[in-house]
């Protein structure tokens, strides 16, 4: 009579490009030179936008901002696997992924400047606005995936989340739904080791986040999140599996939040500079640069061109954003429902000074 093993599970780790730029060509995804350069250019653009946003905040020209420094590969590599017809659900720290998706840079700045119009995603672009309550977009993404499946649309949905988000009930419920209904959705977790000041060890006792997929009966994989090839490879496989009816995947990108949590945070209160230093050596852009240089895809002139173009793009976006007239306060009311209710009409009129006061 048995005490016997009835289930076995493995969690795999994928790294293609190590921190010195050494690449396992067998594992390397079949990207063209152009595509590799594109990955690099997106990462550079993401970083320059990030640096600029940080500076603007410090100058009082932007509100609270959440830096993506260090997470460029995780974001760019994963978003690069998406088609425009796929849907993307960001958390709140996805400027890099949004850049790849083609969200106008101006809108990214506009959002962080405290203007809802930054979330008015252009028609035809299947990106959801930023979600602030951690993890709550996960079931929504699953629902969109379910709708796509019902409609027979051949698309995948990608939902971004952090290590902290894995503790929320909505993570569990969303992934569980995705498993039960075998939905075309990829959960892209950027394990950057921190949820504000709370380290991963306080978020879970599990050794990996990838293994959480076991609870839902689908695959999880852990990848080097600073290796854009590994991220792209895993994301691409998962997205294809999703589109072809193979169901969901959880991808854990092991990375590090190099900056403060947001511009409102001071990470030196709770973590040591040495720990951050360790991760500087693993910089995702540096290692791709080394690889490209060795392959002849990168030289100083190229670097100059790429950074200059990125700077230019960012500067234009800043100028554009700062030229946008302030939002119309009537927008508070207008978008509450498809049609303004009598009640809201009354409140708006009162606000506008129906009884003699003018507030605009």
């Amino acid at each position: 009579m048995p005490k016997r093993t009835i289930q076995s599970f493995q969690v795999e780790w994928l790294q293609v490009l190590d921190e010195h730029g050494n690449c396992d060509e067998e594992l390397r995804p079949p990207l063209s030179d152009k595509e590799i350069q594109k990955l690099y250019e997106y990462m550079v653009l993401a970083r320059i936008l990030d640096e600029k946003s940080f500076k603007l905040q410090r100058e009082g020209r932007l509100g609270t901002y959440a830096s993506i420094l260090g997470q460029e590969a995780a974001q760019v590599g994963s978003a690069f696997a998406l088609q425009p017809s796929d849907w993307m659900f960001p958390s709140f720290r996805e400027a890099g992924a949004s850049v790849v998706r083609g969200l106008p840079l101006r809108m990214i700045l506009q959002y962080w400047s405290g203007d809802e119009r930054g979330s008015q995603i252009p028609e035809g672009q299947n990106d959801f606005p930023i979600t602030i309550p951690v993890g709550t977009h996960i079931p929504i993404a699953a629902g969109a995936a379910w709708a796509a499946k019902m409609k027979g649309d051949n698309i995948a949905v990608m939902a971004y989340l952090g290590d902290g988000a894995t503790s929320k009930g909505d993570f569990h419920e969303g992934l569980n739904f995705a498993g039960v209904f075998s939905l075309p959705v990829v959960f892209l977790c950027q394990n950057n080791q921190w949820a504000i000041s709370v380290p991963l060890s306080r978020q879970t006792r599990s050794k990996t986040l990838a293994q959480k997929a076991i609870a839902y009966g689908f695959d999880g994989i852990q990848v080097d999140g600073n290796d854009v090839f590994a991220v792209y490879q895993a994301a691409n496989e998962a997205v294809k599996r999703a589109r072809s009816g193979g169901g969901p995947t959880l991808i854990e990108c092991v990375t590090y939040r190099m900056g403060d949590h947001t511009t409102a945070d001071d990470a030196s209160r709770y973590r040591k500079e040495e720990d951050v230093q360790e991760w500087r050596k693993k910089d995702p852009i540096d290692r791709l640069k080394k690889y490209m240089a060795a392959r002849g895809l990168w030289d100083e002139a190229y670097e100059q061109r790429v950074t200059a173009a990125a700077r230019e793009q960012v500067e234009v976006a800043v100028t554009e954003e700062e030229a946008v007239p302030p939002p119309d306060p009537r927008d508070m009311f207008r978008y509450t429902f498809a049609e303004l209710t009598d009640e809201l009409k009354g409140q708006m009129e009162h606000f506008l000074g129906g009884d003699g006061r003018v507030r605009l």
Partner: protein
Amino acid sequence: MAKLTMVEAINLALKQEMERDPSVVVLGEDVGKNGGVFRVTQGLYEQFGDARVADTPLSESAIVGVAIGMAVYGLRPVAEIQFEGFIYAAMEQLISHASRIRTRSRGRYYCPLVLRMPYGGGIRAPEHHSESNEALLVHTPGLKVVAPSTPYEAKGLLVSAIRDPDPVIFMEPKRVYRAIKEEVPEEEYSIPLGQSRIVTEGRDVTVISWGAMLQATLKAAALMGERGIRSEVIDLRSLSPLDDETIIESVKKTRRAVIVHEAPRTCGLGAELVARINEKALLYLEAPVERVTGFDTVMPLPKLEQHYLPNAERVVEAMDRVLNF
């Protein structure tokens, strides 16, 4: 015309809307083969199949969250929360997403979701199965909240709710589910959201209620009628937005008002109605508006529930108070 219970009327509305519009889908716990614990979705699974009538895992937050995703993607989900006492887990999805996706995205995305849930007491149900939590939802900007009071009303309002481009919480008074039958047309009709209904016209006192409380209210009005008091009974129907016009006009006429609801008194929807009457008809009032409500206690288990729930007797007493102030 067939006489239907409210369960049957809602079922018919769902069936017809699903036939009309392939983007209408039903999801929730036990809504499939079992036809819902109250049989409201009976037959839909057989007619429309598993893809459009989906039993879900036991996850209220995800039921709402997933339905939001479906709605955003272009479907018209009708999700069920099995009992109103289990909606709290879904409050984050409702308040932080369903109600504000339109305004957050400045109109790019919106959320034509209907969330059905049986609510209210009086059927000797276990804890959490008898609550009346409409005020939490009415206080949430961006949600519409509807509570039908009869089978006819339920069908017409549900049709409007399903066709509405914004999230609608559809609160079904479970005590009425099988308590009354009414002629309900097989043909399509709809009752617009946002409008209250004058059930009986009268000049002496306005009595406002909704859902299951309408029955107690009508009984009280009849009792008062025997004493020559002509009550204007208003079925609120739309709890959000409120139909100020109907309410205020009536109070201006009767100069006296009683509000009846099951929910706890403090910060219940009754308070809002008093506040609006105060704001728009203060000088007409001959007496303080009376609230006949549940107490500020937890809804008790069956052995005490009859003491908690407003009944005709308590409504009559309140009417007496406003009439003899």
